[in-house]
């Protein structure tokens, strides 16, 4: 039980733990994000080279040859049974909190967003993993956190297109139940795989890796008609050569659309007929995948075949989940925290 004085000094944070990136928003108005990578030096020489006992995000990626590298949040949840990954996710959370924490001994209250259909075991794992770093912590569905942050709590659908999962959530004026939510796994990472395979098939002599492919996706992703040809430089026998990858990027990005459309239609079709049009007219895309050019138009056109449809994207996909979780945390009555 916290005293009023303690409450005033609490650090309140909203956290979005993602497969690819994790973000934190704090009541101090600080916001930070990191790539969801954690690395430990392989040996004492590596420790000396990198100068730290643990590295995160971009820094970990840059030094990956010296590190035991972990991307612990497969599908946005802790990989069960792998101690290294459990340790990594704890370290990642602590690192995120450290990025926004002004004083060392400040008590932390957190709301953490997890994929919509996370198993209870995973929610418990997250709660227990972070308990040592927080005074109190609550776990909510990630798309619900986005909806709360936007105050789109009634007659809306949130589609959070992440790297590991795409989370769907219908909001109808209450906390969504399992029936209102879906999670599918053909998300950003799936696009990377498709693009990688397509490029390998078309340009067998070109030299590239998955990380480069991921960068191409983030820079050029689109569906529908390209605004301009997509050309990248790839080494062929160590010589940089320009390659046109327009068709490959388009096909890889469009490969996730059928599942998105089908799941959206299914969730809407299962809803009360009188409200289906309202939901279809208020679809909000979040997550990194919402930045794919043309995806709102495509979905609006395709879903429009069933009735009036409106699809929009959040303006800040990186922090929409963390901001929503923070909004929840700030609104949470004091007595609710003390029960945790």
């Amino acid at each position, binding site marked *: 039980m916290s005293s009023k004085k303690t409450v005033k000094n609490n650090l309140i944070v909203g956290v979005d733990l993602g497969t690819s990136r994790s973000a934190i928003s704090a009541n101090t108005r600080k916001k930070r994000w990191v790539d969801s990578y954690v690395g430990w030096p392989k040996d004492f020489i590596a420790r000396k080279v990198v100068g730290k006992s643990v590295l995160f995000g971009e820094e970990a990626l840059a030094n990956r040859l010296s590190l035991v590298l972990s991307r612990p949040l497969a599908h946005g949840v802790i990989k*069960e*049974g792998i101690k290294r990954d459990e340790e990594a996710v704890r370290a990642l959370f602590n690192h995120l909190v450290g990025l926004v924490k002004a004083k060392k001994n400040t008590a932390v209250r957190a709301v953490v967003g997890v994929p919509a259909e996370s*198993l*209870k075991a995973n929610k*418990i794992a997250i*709660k227990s993993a972070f308990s040592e770093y927080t005074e109190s912590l*609550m776990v*909510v569905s990630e798309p619900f956190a986005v909806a*709360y942050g*936007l*105050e*789109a*709590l009634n*007659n809306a659908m949130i589609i959070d297109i992440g790297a590991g999962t795409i989370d769907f959530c219908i909001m109808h*004026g*209450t*906390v969504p*139940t399992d029936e209102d939510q879906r999670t599918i796994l053909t998300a950003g990472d799936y696009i990377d795989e498709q693009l990688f395979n397509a490029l390998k098939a078309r340009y067998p002599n070109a030299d590239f890796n998955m990380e480069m492919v991921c960068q191409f996706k983030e820079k050029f992703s689109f*569906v*529908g*008609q390209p605004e301009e040809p997509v050309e990248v430089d790839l080494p062929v026998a160590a010589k940089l050569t320009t390659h046109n990858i327009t068709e490959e990027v388009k*096909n890889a990005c*469009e490969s996730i*659309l*059928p*599942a998105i459309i*089908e799941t959206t*239609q*299914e969730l809407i079709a*299962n809803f*009360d007929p*009188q409200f289906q049009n309202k939901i279809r*007219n*208020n679809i909000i895309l979040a997550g990194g995948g919402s930045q794919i*050019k*043309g995806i*709102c*138009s*495509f979905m609006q*056109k*395709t879903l*429009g*075949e069933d009735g*009036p*449809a*409106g*699809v*929009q*994207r*959040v*303006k*800040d996909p990186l922090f*929409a989940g963390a901001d929503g979780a923070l909004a*929840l945390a700030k*609104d*949470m*009555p004091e007595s*609710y925290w003390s*029960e*945790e």
Partner: protein
Amino acid sequence: MLGQKANSKTLKKAILEEIREDNLRLVDPRRPFLNTATRSTRTKPNTPGRFIGLALALVAGLSIFFLFSRPELPLTTSRLHSDIDTSQQLAQNASLPLSDSLSTDAVPSKEPLVDHSKVTIKNNQTMDPVPPIDNYQTTINDMVTDPTPAYSVDAGDYDILINNNDVRLTTLFGLGVRTIVIDPGHGGKDPGAIGAQGTMEKEVTLDVAHRLKNRLEEKSAFNIYLTRETDETMSLSDRVKFTNAVDADLFISIHVNSIPEASINTIETYYFGPPSDEETLRLAKRENADSMYSSAEFKKLIQKIGNTIKQQESIALATKIQRSLFANIKKYDKDVHNWGVKVAPFMVLLDVEAPAVLSEISCISEPEEEKKLNTADYREKIASFIEKGIIAYLTPKQVQAQRGDKDEFKKNG
């Protein structure tokens, strides 16, 4: 539409309260739901005839049997679009209001935005083949339903993978077991079968379930729950709701058979499927008596049968439990009949999301067996035999998960 921002303090307060309850329920799964009415605001109208489920359910079950016998027919009629390009105009959608935190790239255009001919969806949802049921008097080796057709997996083809029983998908994806729900059949006003000496099925199932729970808790780190802890009336739908609420990974329903017309002791274990014979239908009718499901709900539930993981794991679990029960009880009753692993339309097995089996651990109508069931020692033995079956099911699973050895399943059945 975004002008519909919910600013109502009352709504927010209710939502925050539900989040708190959901989080508290993570720690205490038995915590009751705060407000069921609030949680189920999916206001799709209820279908009339909500409580006439059983008769229609059985009819639907028979229909499914015909579907099973024609595997070329798809199970569902889900809205899968093989070509999502039509020429409908969407001018009315192009002028949606925007909030500060939202944007859209939706601009009316005469040109098609996407080459839809390249966007295709495969309909993967077909029925799982149901293995044929052997006749009753089979040996233990013969009776085990073999879920392993002799064709190989093309790793690049998900259609083949999903429809191929050669690989247990839980093994392939390294899925583990954390929570086991044991369901003592009947209870409260429903005594279940009653033996000639007055022994009630509900008492035997509850006692065996408690013993099984204790055994599993002693030796493992699993979370073990009973659907009912005491002699209380509990509908099948409530048992299912509870099981799904605790996110069970395995569900084992314990029952005791009764065949007054024949003085025999039998053991049989079921997973969900269409009835295979008159006797199974009779049993299903008895065990489904308090299901409280409507026909509409049943139709919805039946579509879940295509769930490959659940089906595969239910068969494997049923096989292990049945094997252990029969092989061990035979040491005490050489005349016990092995009725094997069977499929039947038990409602309690259908809607549970986890792999689910129903085991008829004994036959209370057989006088000698009823006497034994009245001893704590025998009930403890039965619990230990079920436990062995569960452990046998889990053990190769762990080995397979670690080794990725697909052939292990073939060897272990």
